[in-house]
Each structure stands twice: as structure tokens, then as C-alpha cells.
């Protein structure tokens, strides 16, 4: 009786998992495989393995400068965003973690208020601000707003980590005549590699996938990151789904590779960061 019931539960779990796997994996596989098919085959056989593998769908994209320009733009924007976020964020987080002064609590509350609303709420005034600063159609017109809107979360995560470092370190260093700035550079940062990697990875993924801010700030497709570029591509090849699917596969590939290598940082950062948000 108990054995039979146990088997029942196991069977239910297995069935449930299979259904979930089918639900998640089908669109992904259809996309990757669809890129290998001819348009005619895609119509008759959208979900099976290709009968003849059309490698040139992928090769044509890989050998086009268009694809690499898009990825290059996305990479430049994401790396600049990560670098600026980590530099400004860790410096501010260090002050909030270790130094108390009149108004420090208020300033911290001021920054964390940034968690309360998304960039979309102020996107038009943001556009006008970026335009008045002469930054439209430049990497920094995207990077600076992205850094600003990511700062609240980054500072929160970094501050918590800095605070959990052993306080004796700071005491000892200060007694030995080390300045706070020296302590930050020589001790805090080297000890904080894990959290810097986590914050950097989250900020990178968010910037890599971002759509709204680049869409509003860019006019010329010369600087388009890939989410904008792929929308243009889809507009041009509107019914040649095999090419669009190949293009999608090649643009999400970097994300998937990064995910496989940095999954610990991504999962920890996104869930832990979320919990504190």
C-alpha cells in the first residue's frame, strides 16, 4: 500500500517534470533547429530535426559585418556600464558601510529610493536630459542612465558585503596609519571579488538585454545594440523565419554561454539581490 502510494507520487512528479521540460524546451529547440531549415521545410516541419541541414543560414550571418557590429555595440555598452557601476557603486557602498557622518543615513535612503520605480516612469524627461547634455546617439547616452538606475541595487549588495568583512581589519589598518582610501584600495576591493563578480554579472546581463533606453536614445543604427538590430532585421526579413530564427539563436548564444560559465553568480545575484530589493 505504502509502496504503491510512493510510486504514485514519483510517477506524478516525473510526469509533471516531463510536461514542464516540454513546455520550456520546445520553443528553444524549435528556434535553434529552425535556423537550420529551408523556408519550405520550416513550413511543413517546424519542430522536428531538419531533413537537410542548411548551415549557410548561420554562416551567412556569422560572416556578415552586421552581426558583429551589433554584438560589438552591445558589448561596448555593457562593459562600460559594468565598469562605471562597479567603480562608482563600490566607492559609495564603502562610505555607506564604514563611515558615519551627519546625513549619511539620509543619503543612503535617498539612493535606495531608486529601487522603488523603473526607468520607464521618467523616460521622456530622461530623453530630454540626455539630449540637452548632447549625449543622444552616443554610447554614454545609454550607459549613464543605465548606471544611474542600477546604482541602488548595486550599492545595496556591495554595502552588505563590505559590512560583513571582519571589522578588525579596518581597526588594525587605521591604527597602522592606513587611510580609508588606502584601505579601500588595498584591502576591501581585493577581498570583495566574489560580490564584484556577482554585481558585475547581473549588470552585464541587464545591459546586454536592455531595449527601452537604447531605443529612445539612439537614432542611427550604426550604434544599435543587438535587441534593436534584431527588430530591424525582423522587419526586413519579415516572413523568412528561418533566417530570423538563426539570427535569434546567434544573438542569445552569448547569453547562454555566459550563463553556463557564471551560473552561480547569476542565480545568486538575481535571487539574493531580489530578496534584498
Amino acid at each position, binding site marked *: 500500500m505504502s509502496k504503491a*502510494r510512493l510510486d504514485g*507520487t514519483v510517477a506524478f*512528479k516525473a510526469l*509533471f*517534470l516531463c510536461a*514542464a*521540460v516540454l513546455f*520550456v524546451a520546445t*520553443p*528553444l529547440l524549435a*528556434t535553434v533547429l529552425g535556423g537550420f531549415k529551408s523556408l519550405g521545410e520550416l*513550413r511543413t516541419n*517546424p*519542430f522536428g530535426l531538419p531533413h537537410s541541414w542548411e548551415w549557410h543560414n548561420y554562416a551567412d550571418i556569422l560572416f556578415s559585418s552586421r552581426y558583429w557590429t551589433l554584438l560589438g555595440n552591445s558589448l561596448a555598452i555593457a562593459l562600460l556600464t559594468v565598469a562605471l557601476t562597479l567603480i*562608482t557603486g563600490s*566607492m*559609495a557602498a564603502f*562610505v555607506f558601510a564604514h*563611515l558615519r*557622518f551627519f546625513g549619511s543615513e539620509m*543619503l543612503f535612503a*535617498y539612493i535606495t529610493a*531608486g529601487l522603488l*520605480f*523603473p526607468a*520607464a*516612469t*521618467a*523616460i*521622456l*524627461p*530622461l530623453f*530630454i*536630459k540626455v539630449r540637452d547634455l548632447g549625449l543622444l546617439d552616443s554610447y554614454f547616452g545609454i550607459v549613464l542612465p543605465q548606471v*544611474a*538606475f542600477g*546604482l541602488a541595487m548595486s550599492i545595496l549588495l556591495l554595502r552588505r558585503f563590505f559590512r560583513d568583512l571582519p571589522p578588525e581589519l579596518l581597526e588594525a589598518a587605521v591604527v597602522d596609519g592606513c*587611510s*580609508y*582610501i588606502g584601505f*579601500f584600495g588595498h584591502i576591501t576591493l581585493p577581498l570583495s571579488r566574489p560580490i564584484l563578480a556577482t554585481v558585475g554579472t547581473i549588470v552585464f*546581463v541587464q545591459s546586454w*538585454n536592455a*531595449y527601452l533606453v537604447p531605443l529612445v536614445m539612439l537614432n542611427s543604427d550604426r550604434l544599435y545594440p543587438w*535587441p534593436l538590430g534584431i*527588430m530591424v532585421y525582423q522587419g526586413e526579413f519579415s*516572413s523568412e*523565419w528561418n533566417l*530570423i*530564427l538563426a539570427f*535569434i539563436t546567434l544573438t*542569445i548564444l552569448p547569453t*547562454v554561454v555566459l*550563463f553556463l560559465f557564471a*551560473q552561480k553568480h547569476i*542565480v545568486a545575484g*538575481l*535571487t539574493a539581490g*531580489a*530578496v534584498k530589493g
Partner: protein
Amino acid sequence: MRFAVRRRDSSKWAAILLFLPPALLLFSIFVVLPAGEAGWYSAFNWNGFGRPTRWIGLDNYRFVLDNRAFGVAIGNNLKVIAVSLLVQLPLAMTLAIILAERFRGAVALRMLFFLPYILAEIATGLMFSFIYDGNYGLLATIYGWFGAEAPHLLASPATAMPAILVVIVWKYFGFHMMLFIAALQGLDRGVIEAARIDGATGWQLQRHVVIPLLSPTIRLSVFFSVVGSLQLFDLIMPLTRGGPADSSHTIVSFLYTFGVTRMRVGFGSAVGVILFLICVTFAFTYKRWFMRDE
């Protein structure tokens, strides 16, 4: 000694004055100022050129609230929240309970289910516009087996939004599942073992022991579902752009379509201010009522 204290003090102020301004400036210029300016601009009829001069008071808010598409957008945001709570949350929790146990392949499955969450919304939307395509996609195939013409789901006002809701569950349940797995792994195994010894099994154990222990995480998951719904935009653009007949807009896609693309700065700012108020009110009341202990 006094010298040392003074030196320490000057070192402290050097750090503060060097380290704080960059973050504070960036945050003030690109987050706080625009948020405040949205309130100011929303009182003008302004196309963005020159300076705003045509003051119209609260008229923009009246135009927004009178706009039928805005009501539909709010309704769609509520539908997203409803589906997140009624479909996505139970799905995420069930999978988390199954996958929190150790067995071969559990970690790989977790990763597979989490993968959609980190894919770009734009790419996800395009993938699903293929899946839903009446000539090529999954539905086309299934209808084809019966020799019937497949409906174009995204092209009909009755089906566009439900089709988007499926994509939302596909994309986001893995994130909520990970929240629950993290919580389950932090649970006190002793309590669960005690209940098991007392004779609680299977469903009883989940219903009366595990799920109550997860309630802080449930509240957190609900919070993220609502906040995520309020920001929803990227996924809408590749799927429907808010159409057909403005049937699938969210608040942000409404803002983009009617405010940004037509450069109606005042009108768009008014939408932004309304969204801002919804976000802030929700965050405060929810945290006060449901997340007091955290």
C-alpha cells in the same frame, strides 16, 4: 594622540568627499531629476522642442484617464498579475518542491527552467511570434493535422493578450522557482523531520508544514510579480506592439506608443507620473502590510 585623531578624521572626510559624489551625481541627474521633471512637464502641452510654455494644468491627466486604450492597458497589467499569482506561482512552487530534493539531473533541470529568465525579452518575443505564426508555428502544425487553417493568435484582439500571458509564464516562472528553491534549502530540516515522524506524509506534509514555512517567500514572489508586471514592455513590442486595435498594451507600452513615438512630452510624462505613483504606493503599502518582519 590628538594628531592621530585629526589625521583619521581628515582621512575619513577625504574618502567621503572623493567617493560619494560620483554616485550621488549620476543618481541625481539621471534618476531623481527626470522623475521630478516628469511632474513638471506633465502640466504642459509640449512637443519637446524649445522650452515648455503652454501650461494646461491637469488636462494631460484627464486625457490619459479618458483614453480608452489606457484603461485596457491597466486591465492588461492586472491580467498579468492575476496569471502570475494563479498560474505561475503554483507552478513555480510545485517545481521547486520537486527539484529541491537531491536526485540525478535536478540541478540541470533547475538551470533549464531558469534559462528563459535570462534571455532577452526581445529574443523571447520574436521566438514566440514564430511559435504563434499561423503559417509556420506550433498551432499551424497542430491544425494542419486536422486539415484546418490555424488562427493567427496575435492578430486577433480576443486572443493576443492570452497568448502574451503564456509567454510571460514561460519566461518568468523559473525565477520564482529559484526563489522558492533557495528558501526550501534554508528551511529547518528538523521541523519537517518531526512532522514526518508524527506521521505527516506527502501532500499533508506540504500543505500543513512546508507551504506555511514558505509564506515569506510567497509574499516576496507576489511582490516581484506585481513590480514586474508594472514594468512590462520589452516583451510586448516584438509580439504585438500593443495591437491589434490597442488590445494588448501595458502601461509602459502605452506610454511609449502614445507619448514617446509622438513626442507628446506632457502627455507621456503624465502617464509616467501615474505609473510612478502606482509603483511607490504599491511598494510602501505592500511592505507595510505584508513584509513587516523582513
